[in-house]
């Protein structure tokens, strides 16, 4: 074989069966993560057909989407949510699948705990009934979201039929300016190629700016690949990846680690390997980005103004913009940094890891949340929460007026009590600003953790780079 990409190496090593190269391949799945929302009907299907879970030892369940982020000792108030959570427990017991329930000390969002605990490793095929499974690609795995019928298929067979996707290299050029983050990089990409720009493709992120990102930042990048329509996002394993893996609780240790390490590093895309498409993004002028509309592509630098649909030449786009601005209650020409917000959410599988909280806390330290703003931090996992508390981040947040909550998806999708009221506007570190995502009539502005923190302090969207030069009051 000639030069191969990371994707190709993983793909070819997992083909169980394929009639002809242009037909769908039956892929072996190394890790199957499960959560309460997209699994009940799959277990039900198994039960009805009298099937079992083929490899419970490669399957792992967690409760995250529905769970309350307030006091866990109280019963869940929402009866239907409670039923779904209880059902996962029943299913896992019946089918022998390991479960990290509400009371497990390291419970958290599935895409946070997989990498954090070391369950996710380079070279694996990983699926979950959740589109943000792309997050795990940051460690050099091929990880993608599937629907519930496919969850059932993987449970029963540990395999999945897949058409081979195309590959896309996203090369970030130049250095990332001070005050900008991985979140801004991915928002800039989505703005550039659009929310369907990578449909049918697996993205690999390359370039020095990607190499210099920490693993947690790489996860932010891969996480939002789906927001550009991609099947998956991935990054070739390197020394940074190895250092991260070395300290995970469930990765191999000692000489086993050294063997694994050599294998993992060999998976990186070979020099000269070809991608079906290459997109280059220049980072020189990158600024903190913020969404102004109702999908992640509708974003702009914080220094810009709300765009004017009348200036848009494409009539279809113009009408979408009008619709979005009406929903968002925004007028063209308004400076983005003058938009007042009432809510701030720091969390989610995009930005709910320790480094995210650390960076937000640095902005907040010694300041106060503006009057009239309700701000919350929801750590991505029990471990993130414990670590954050050990280094005193919770104190910084609560002293500033933030709520410090229990781990879960929370306001990212508003399936539990954490929702916005109609018309309420948030600065949110999550990944989707769709209509109603954070509650019916809610208005979401996606930003980095630093920018969310800055908005909480200012009471409006603001450029974190200028905030940091002001003297805290």
């Amino acid at each position, binding site marked *: 074989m000639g030069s191969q990409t990371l994707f190709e190496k993983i793909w070819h090593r997992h083909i169980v069966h394929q009639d002809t190269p242009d037909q769908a391949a039956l892929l072996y799945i190394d890790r199957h993560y499960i959560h309460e929302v997209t699994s009940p009907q799959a277990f039900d299907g198994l039960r009805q057909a009298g099937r079992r879970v083929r490899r419970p030892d490669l399957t792992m369940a967690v409760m995250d989407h529905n769970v309350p982020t307030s006091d866990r000792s109280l019963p869940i108030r929402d009866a239907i949510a409670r039923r779904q959570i209880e059902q996962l427990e029943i299913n896992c017991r019946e089918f022998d699948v390991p479960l990290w329930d509400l009371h497990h000390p390291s419970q958290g969002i599935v895409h946070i705990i997989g990498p954090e605990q070391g369950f996710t490793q380079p070279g694996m095929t990983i699926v979950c009934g959740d589109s943000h499974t792309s997050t795990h690609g940051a460690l050099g795995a091929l990880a993608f*979201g599937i629907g519930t019928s496919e969850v059932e298929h993987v449970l029963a067979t540990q395999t999945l039929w897949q058409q081979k996707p195309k590959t896309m290299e996203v090369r970030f050029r130049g250095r990332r300016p001070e005050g900008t983050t991985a979140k801004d990089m991915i928002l800039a990409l989505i703005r550039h190629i659009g929310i369907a720009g990578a449909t049918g493709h697996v993205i690999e992120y390359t370039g020095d700016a990607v190499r210099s990102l920490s693993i947690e930042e790489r996860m932010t990048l891969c996480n939002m690949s789906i927001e550009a329509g991609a099947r998956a996002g991935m990054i070739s394993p390197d020394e940074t990846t190895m250092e991260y893996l070395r300290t995970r609780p469930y990765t191999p240790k000692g000489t086993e680690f050294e063997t694994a390490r050599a294998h993992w590093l060999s998976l990186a895309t070979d020099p000269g390997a070809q991608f079906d498409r290459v997109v280059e993004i220049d980072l020189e002028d990158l600024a903190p980005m913020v969404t102004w509309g109702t999908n992640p592509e509708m974003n702009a630098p914080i220094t810009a103004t709300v765009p004017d649909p009348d200036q848009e030449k494409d009539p279809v786009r113009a009408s979408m913009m009008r619709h979005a601005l009406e929903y968002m209650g925004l007028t063209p020409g308004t400076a983005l940094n003058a938009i007042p917000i009432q809510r701030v959410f720091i969390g989610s599988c995009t930005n709910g890891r320790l480094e995210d909280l650390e960076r937000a806390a640095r902005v907040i330290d010694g300041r106060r949340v503006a009057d009239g703003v309700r701000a919350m931090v929801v750590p991505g996992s029990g471990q993130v929460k414990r670590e954050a508390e050990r280094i005193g981040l919770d104190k910084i947040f609560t002293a500033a007026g933030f709520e410090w909550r229990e781990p879960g998806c929370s306001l990212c999708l508003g399936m539990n009590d954490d929702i916005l009221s109609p018309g309420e506007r948030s600065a949110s570190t999550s990944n989707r600003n769709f209509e109603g995502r954070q509650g019916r009539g809610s208005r979401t502005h996606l930003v980095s953790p630093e920018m969310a923190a800055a908005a909480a302090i200012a009471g409006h969207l603001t450029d974190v780079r200028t905030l940091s030069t002001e003297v805290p009051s």
Partner: protein
Amino acid sequence: MTPFIRQRGVVAPLERNNVDTDQIIPKQFLKRIERTGFGQFLFFDWRFSEDGTPKPDFILNQPQYRSATILVAGENFGCGSSREHAPWALEDFGFRVIIAPSFADIFYNNCFQNGLLPVTLPASDVARIFDLARNETPLSLEVDLEKQTISSETGEFQTSFSIDPERRRKLMQGLDAIGETLLLTDAIASFEGNHDLPLLPHNL
């Protein structure tokens, strides 16, 4: 799964691009553990105002589209989450075919698991269907998966479409995908024999 051979029905035009799964079925309705009964929540925020009354402007609330079985929409239909509740809701509501210039990957795939046929047509064809469907007499189309054609009763619209042959076969036979794969159990087992797999630790 009910086999899909052909479908004749009224067309509902949903003239929006990037219809996301949060719109198709908002998350407050994802808590059910059944596979059925999601149709009542389809496009909930678009169909109903906050007090629960139907919004008369929304296409599916208009009497001539009530019985529609074919939905036609703008590009990138079904983007967003992987929730299969989206095809479940569309199917439960009565749709058997979705026509659009393009679909999001996971949604597209999920349709086939549920006997729902997604048809990709050039944007110009979709625009033409929108025009015809907006008429007072609703447009009725026949979608024939066997012949891979779409035609209107009166003959003013006619086209053919392409689709992956494997997916077509499975849809037409209404096959249980898992049952088929289980025929390859030996291949799976022998793959497992040669594949280096880090197991999850016991007693998590």
